[in-house]
């Protein structure tokens, strides 16, 4: 199939960017979106033009490296899919496709379609873990976890930290990402001791970098792992509970 691409090209964080039009010819419908870009890049190299830079690695939809706005939608038109698992059979011969980097103030452009997503790691550093040093764990089966709880926790833990939720959100909010980690750990018995501290610390760092959530729900619609916005409600409840707890303890109550 033959396609026309308009791709955002920007040499560096500070350089001016612009859309450049490329023809992608003879693309197999079985190729992934990134493999289509590989073909374009080989041709660009042939013509002595620098290839389009985009982030990618596992190409199995699990590492979270890849991601771009495809016709205005994070990871493209097919739900529950990362860009690397989007196949060209979902497009029509002759289609025009607009390709842009993630759009969010918290994610400055590094080059072309590559952005800096490091604020997401900072949210994890603030509390997205269970404090257990190597060697001090108890025997695994002394802890009983109902299957339904474990499944729910796993639903949240599947997040691949790609940043699509932020890119699609009109507010550039990171609630879906943060709530997935808060819920993954907060649902489990191992996560209880730090549950309320964790949510407060993570939300504070999140708010330093990202916008506010006004429940558009766009994040859920583009999430390649189909993580539910119910987790945002859960995070908000925990956050509120944590704040009441702090107030109580400041007042000397137990």
């Amino acid at each position: 199939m033959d396609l026309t691409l308009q791709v955002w090209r920007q040499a560096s964080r500070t350089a001016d960017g612009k859309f450049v039009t490329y023809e992608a010819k003879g693309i197999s419908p079985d190729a992934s979106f990134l493999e289509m870009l590989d073909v374009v890049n080989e041709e660009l190299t042939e013509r002595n033009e620098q290839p389009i830079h985009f982030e990618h690695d596992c190409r199995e939809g699990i590492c979270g490296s890849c991601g771009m706005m495809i016709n205005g939608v994070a990871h493209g038109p097919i739900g529950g899919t990362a860009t690397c698992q989007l196949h060209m059979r979902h497009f029509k011969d002759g289609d025009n496709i607009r390709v842009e980097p993630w759009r969010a103030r918290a994610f400055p452009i590094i080059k072309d379609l590559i952005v800096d997503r490091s604020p997401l790691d900072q949210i994890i550093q603030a509390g997205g873990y269970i404090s257990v040093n190597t060697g001090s764990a108890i025997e695994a089966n002394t802890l009983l976890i109902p299957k339904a709880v474990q499944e729910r926790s796993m639903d949240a833990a599947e997040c691949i930290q790609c940043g699509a939720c932020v890119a699609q959100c009109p507010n550039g909010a990171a609630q879906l990402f943060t709530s997935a980690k808060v819920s993954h750990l907060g649902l489990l018995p191992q996560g209880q001791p730090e549950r309320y501290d964790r949510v407060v610390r993570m939300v504070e760092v999140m708010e330093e970098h990202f916008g506010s959530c006004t429940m558009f729900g766009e994040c859920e619609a583009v999430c390649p792992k189909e993580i539910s916005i119910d987790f945002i409600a859960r995070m908000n409840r925990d956050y509120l509970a944590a704040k009441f707890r702090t107030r109580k303890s400041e007042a000397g109550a137990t």
Partner: protein
Amino acid sequence: MTLDSKSPPGPIDKKWEYAKAHYKLVNPANKRKYDVIVVGAGLAGAAAAASMAELGYNVQCFVYHDSPRRAHSIAAQGGINAAKNYQNDGDSIYRLFYDTVKGGDYRSRESNVYRLAQLSVNIIDQAVAQGVPFAREYGGLLENRSFGGVQVSRTFYARGQTGQQLLLGAFQALERQIGLGRVKMYPRHEMLDVVLVDGQAKGIVTRNLVTGTITSYAADAVVLATGGYANVFYLSTNAKASNATAIWRAYRRGAYFANPCYTQIHPTCIPQSGDFQSKLTLMSESLRNDGRIWVPKVAGDARRPDQIPESERDYYLERKYPSFGNLAPRDIASRGAKEVCDEGRGVGPGGRGVYLDFADAIKRLGRSVIEERYGNLFDMYADITAENPYETPMRIYPAPHYTMGGLWVDYNLMSTIPGLYVGGEANFSDHGANRLGASALMQGLADGYFVLPVTIGDYLAGQLGKKVSADGAEFKQTQAEVEQRIGKLVGAKGKRSVDSFHKELGNIMWERCGMARTAEGLKSAIADIRVLRDQYWRDVRVLGTNEEPNQALERAGRVADFFDLGELMCIDALAREESAGGHFRVEYQTADGEAKRNDDDFLYASAWQFKGDNAAPELHKEALVYEEVKLATRSYK
């Protein structure tokens, strides 16, 4: 130099205890005076960096990704082995040890493998404590599944994303230490060389992938946890960026490279569909618990699978290996697929595929059970092939997946360069000539959480007051060499893209150093690689400069090292005149086509020493001594 494995004395089940009791220790107040560099943050690297920081060392951790959580460990699907014996099916530490030695076709070091089996139980405890949501039974206890090459259920899993969840556990432990200021993280930094001062590893040289800046970092010890080299084949199940540069640079500085020819070709991957293909996708081995592998009995049978009656199907693994059936080890299952396809009985485009059929399992268990067990794998298969595996059998074919070879390390995971440690897939230590499924995660985490943080103290204790500065002459010299090499790649200004060369190299390796190898094929491969490599340095086209993000330049350096490594793999495969595990030499097979080992002449690990660009590498042999397991011909019949 004779290779000393430093395996501790005493009975096999007391060796690790003995070693720990005799290591020199660094006192807690002194630990903060030591700097340790960790390169890579997959399971082994992230676990080691976090655990060493918890102990009090100053850790600097370098990854080429934007975040440590992107490491390719994240893509491991099926599970992690541990000798918990929760299923009461006769499992034990000894049995896991025995299965691993046998699965590796008796080419691994007993003491290391035993320690791995011992530590496996601690890994599960640690992961659960971190919040890894392993699959559970209705009663709330941990669930297990079976994997290839064994007859017990000892594999723990988290849906089809076990690697992801285990890596997130290690990643979160690492992020915690970063937040506490005990680990300094360097994302988007690629290690391009290791620096030796007086023969000891004292630092690294890196390129900042955003600015192109080349910088030296000094430390008291260096840990490489940079993964395997299956991308030498171009098409593999590895992530696109996975590469051998870190271990290859270390090899050139004096670390011996062990068993480079031991590569694992995984039996269940989605077949290649066209020239545009950039990678191959694995379908977890766990699918072989319920899927049955078959091809038509007659060559050239072009009927749809549902039109081929039961009596005209050949379930060749069940036929040839009745006691293990579809759960035969990976090397055997892969060769079986190649054999039937070579006979013209392969299915799908190009005849390079076999069926993995779930019809019986769906009939027996119901679709919902299969969906619960493998749903995400089935979805992934449907995404890629546009076929529905619930209705028509999957098509699968072997693909390069894992490399058992790697830098030679002793029992303490130290390479032949003092102060240079190697963990995870980057070393050669535990899997012999073939790795069993669900054992890579186990080894990466055992090395990272429990071995490296302990063994490194034994070395560091002797390094007090021997700090070096990154401004020293050795650093300046190494950095200059790195810069010169980059200049050569950018300056070649040739006509061909990096990828076009990589594909050609991959083809040579796959055809002649892949699933079946011959002396003649290997010799011609070595000659062809040399010609292609010369052409590469003259004719590669890397556009742009070093002083900017430049993905072609990143790849160019990695592919240059793949040429040299590919050559060494062929040299090693040629020298090993026997078949063992994943290394199948056509000249050495039994009457029924099984691998024929030669224990009289080849019961050793090959460790190659770099002798210069225009000199042949020198082979050193670590004799493998089997005190516990009796050498036998592997049989899965």
